[in-house]
């Protein structure tokens, strides 16, 4: 119950904060905030226009706000900006031929790494298996017979002179 009161209080507070942004209702405000967090500032290139205080970011924020108030869709606003600044303004560039490597590259690297790891693991196991050749029984028999014959030949002359 207490949690509900807290939630209600926070909601009230947030609506006060939201009302602070001029001319936008809560829904428009949400769209505005979501959009400016997706757009790159061209001056401070590692900041979104939501974060940056560069004059250009201020201009672009105002532009986004004006267009939201005018009822333009997100696609229209994004189109307006990419027409002027290119895909660079988008923190999430669209998937197309020139960005295919950007989007697929990490997965290709991962795949390559997996293939390499698999081959490496198999490669280290194979030589160990190769040394353990199965024993050829015929070869053992032959070796045994040869050894016996050699021993017999060694023994024979040693004994004969005494007899």
């Amino acid at each position, binding site marked *: 119950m207490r949690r509900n009161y807290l939630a209600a209080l926070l909601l009230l507070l947030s609506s006060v904060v939201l009302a602070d942004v001029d001319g936008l209702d809560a829904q428009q405000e949400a769209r505005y905030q979501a959009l400016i967090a997706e757009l790159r500032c*061209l*001056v401070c*290139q590692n900041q979104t226009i939501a974060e940056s205080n560069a*004059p*250009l970011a201020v*201009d*672009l924020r105002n*532009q986004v706000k004006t267009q939201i108030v005018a009822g333009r869709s997100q696609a229209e606003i994004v189109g307006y900006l*990419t*027409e*002027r*600044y*290119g895909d*660079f303004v988008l923190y999430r560039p669209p998937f197309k031929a020139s960005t295919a490597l950007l989007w697929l590259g990490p997965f290709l690297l991962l795949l390559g790494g997996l293939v390499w790891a698999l081959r490496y693991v198999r490669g280290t196991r194979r030589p160990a298996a190769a040394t353990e050749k199965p024993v050829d029984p015929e070869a053992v028999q032959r070796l045994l017979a040869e050894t016996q014959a050699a021993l017999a030949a060694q023994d024979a002359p040693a004994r004969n002179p005494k007899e």
Partner: protein
Amino acid sequence: MKYLVPIAVLLGLIALFAVGLTRDPREVPSPLVGKPAPAFALPGLGGTPARVTPADWRGRTVLVNYFASWCAGCRVEHPLLMQLAHEQGVEIIGLAYKDADADTQAWLDRHGNPYRSVIADNAGSAGLDWGVYGVPETFVVGPDGSILFKQIGPMTPEAWETKIRPLLGVRREG
């Protein structure tokens, strides 16, 4: 060769980085190159003429230079623009970007005016439409009103010689 693959990968990466490091991340390719220059209707500096539009220089190849009195890079390229305008007869249109008219005028009085006409883009609205994100930026606009080239940052003698002069068809003087 046991290390052939790792060495090949390493060399490939070095090649990629070597190319990547020569590129300036601040130079964002403009999607406007090859497209018609965005229209605007703005007053000239100090209010005269009352209205200038890109149609005013239709039929000629011009340089459209966004500059401002508060811009350091503009001072860097200024001598070159002066030389191009006064010695080589290049038509340069100046757009004073986010500047107060009095400041622009004082700057031009002090350093010289390379511009055939100066347009006051006080609010940066034309700049926004032209995709300007920092002055100076210079556009080459062809006779049909389309943008042929965009120079981001100060104009350099190299950029003029290799990229812009061929577009304007200006012969080397002498």
